[in-house]
């Protein structure tokens, strides 16, 4: 019995490790996740908020780091700086105009938002948008610390993602108890 427990624990560790370190270069994006996106907290008619699934990229160091690379490669940093914002809103705080869930962020990038967020549909491959979404969550400490990227080889900016204070989203659609 005890051996089994140990084995299970070891396997759990192994799974975590693999998830964190796997590097898949040909991503098949989790398309299904984008089907049911709401950015409002109001769900009239007694409906419950849509169920969320965790983005596979969020636990994966490689994908998160790719997200970080793309964040500057695609000029996201031009508006959002290194997370503190500028022309665009801050991403390292606890305020999310259009939702903090990965699928909501995906939608925000894909379709744009009316107050100045460009629509990147057709300009960024789907898988990369998901990587960006996962990275953006890590900027406010919402991704696991052991997978989140560390500082970049640039000017010392905000605390690196793996040391970023975890900012519980303020206008989250999900009750605090369901927070990850």
């Amino acid at each position, binding site marked *: 019995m005890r051996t089994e427990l140990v084995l299970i624990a070891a396997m759990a560790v192994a799974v975590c490790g693999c998830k964190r370190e796997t590097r898949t270069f040909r991503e098949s994006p989790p398309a299904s996740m984008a089907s049911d996106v709401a950015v409002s907290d109001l769900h009239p008619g007694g409906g419950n908020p849509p169920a969320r699934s965790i983005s596979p990229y969020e636990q994966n160091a490689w994908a998160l780091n790719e997200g970080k690379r793309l964040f500057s490669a695609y000029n996201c940093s031009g508006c959002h700086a290194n997370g503190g914002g500028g022309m665009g809103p801050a991403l390292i705080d606890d305020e999310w105009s259009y939702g903090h869930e990965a699928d909501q962020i995906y939608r925000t990038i894909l379709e744009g938002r009316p107050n100045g967020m460009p629509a990147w549909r057709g300009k960024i491959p789907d898988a990369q948008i998901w990587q960006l979404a996962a990275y953006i969550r890590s900027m406010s400490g919402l991704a696991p610390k052991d997978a989140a990227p560390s500082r970049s080889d640039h000017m010392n900016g905000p605390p690196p993602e*793996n040391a970023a204070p975890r900012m519980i989203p303020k206008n989250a659609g999900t009750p605090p108890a369901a927070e990850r």
Partner: protein
Amino acid sequence: MSLLDQEPADSGDEKVVPPLDPARTLPASLDVSAEKLEAVWAEKPGLFGWLSVVNHRDIGRRYIVTAFVFFFMAGLLALVMRIQLARPDNHFLGPDAYNQIFTMHGTVMMFLFAVPVMEAFGVYVVPLMVGARNIAFPRLNAFSYWMFLFGGIFVFVMFALNSGPDVGWFAYPPLSGPAYTPGKRADVWAQLITFTELAGLAVSVEIIVTVFKLRAPGMSLNRIPLFVWAQTITAFMVLLAMPAVMLASTALILDRLVGTHFFNPAEGGDPLLWQHLFWFFGHPEVYIIFIPATGIVSTIVSTFSRRPAFGYLALVLALVSTAFIGFGLWVHHMFATGLPQMGESFFTAASIMIAIPSGLQFFCWIATMWGGRVVLKLPMLWVLGFFIVFLVGGLTGVMLAAVPLDLQVHDTFFVVAHFHYVLIGGALFPLFGAVYYWFPKITGRMLGERLGQWNFWLFTLGFNLTFFPMHILGLEGMPRRVYTYQAETGWGDLNYLSTIGAGVLGVSVLVFLVNVIVSLRAGVLAGDNPWGAGTLEWATTSPPPNCNFVYPPTVAGVNPLWENPPDQPVVVGLRDDVRDVLVTYVLDAEPDHRTEFPEPTIWPFCTALATSALFIGSIFTPWAVVIGAVPLFVGLTGWFWPKEAGETGTQAWPIQHRTLPKPGEAPAGGPV
């Protein structure tokens, strides 16, 4: 040329034996009970006892076996790499796997095999060679082994979890830095360094103190066996070199985990700083591996030439100067970074200069062989292999010291060939010799001759087949650390040949493994001194008793078994009811005082566990350093808890020397 003068002829001089102190009174009997001694120096039984072992023979044996296990695993990784490279555009491995594998191969070979195995032989052989009952700081020794073991397990487990390091064994930032190696792979590498360096530093301290303070009376500095000299000098090099890389790897971890900027050029850090720190360790590292091997070569050459090594003083000074110069040429790993011409010339000169002491050693060994009658037993065969193979590596080394040539072949397969010729030729060949040489002492049985011959010849063939073509590949432009190459480069055939050679090497190692297993069960019984060697480890039984020597010996020459007179005294006056050892003076090894060595204890194991938890935890959160300090503190407290007053013997016998009543048990003199 006084350097080459032989050991003074007055090797049997009476003045070597320290005079008795007339002021001390002698007890009635100085005889000790061998049974009592065995019991006092025995380890505890059971699993608990197994974890509590503090004697240098058990720990040394474990060290050697563990290091060889890592060697086999890293060798398997090398085979996998060679399969991938056998053909151009091969799809056996992807770049991700290949990068982890070659990094693991290099890292494990360097940090978990080459350095530890040399130290392991030191741990086993040095106390015996200097006539000590145990290594100095036995608990630290146990701790060192556990750290080494846990570090090795840690890195292989992480490798199995796809978190193996993938940034090369010298892990240059920025590639190994936070921006370009996400995840924990580089942290695993950096922390492994900390593990092994901690283990290595501990062993160095033990060896230095053992050699300086636990030598048999009479073993003045000019009578220390060459292997012991080599180990001592290596230990000093470790003390000076390894802190540099520990510093560097800690800085790397801080960069990655905490967000410091040691190696970030944007914020005033410098990626070249890493290279300087790393190679300030990395180049001496080569000598840390090579110098013990020269000690092995000196020992084996002397034993099998049936005469003392020619040019004792020259050999020792050659080692010392190699060690010194070894710290002055790290920059030749960095010629391609674009240094000022003046600096390049200086380091070229230093790199070329180091060939002089090596050459001197070579000539002394050849002179030893010319001056004696060579008996071509298996250990000596490996040393002959060393001569030829290392010579090639040394000569290509001189080529690499030349900046313009280095600029061409640096970071190519030429360099891969070079350092395998140096490291396998310069360290692994002597090491196999050492295994064949000391296996009888350690196990009491000889290694099989026939399988041994197969092992040697297959190894030599496989080795040259694998690595010689790499010289040509390098000149043809093949960079190292490539997971594949294109067909149009024309590198396919030589790579194929190399892969075949690697297979032969693998078979040879397999033969060795079989030989060891078979011989352990059914090898010829060795007896005390099967080779007729002259150093003290052969003056006791094979394998040695718990206390190493019932009566610690005194010596009258470099090769006491050859040079001691028949009535050479032994040490008496040490207690047989506690773990009493004799401490001697540094220079002339005259008796200083007695001290009591610690009992077996579980605490080093516990402390090592706590330390490992701290190190591994610190990869995931900096808080682990704080939290992990608590169990570590507990472990250290247990370790250093003072003994109760009653346990320490109050009765002290005066230390004396005397001739043993039964000459047969005593070290008997003269070359065999």
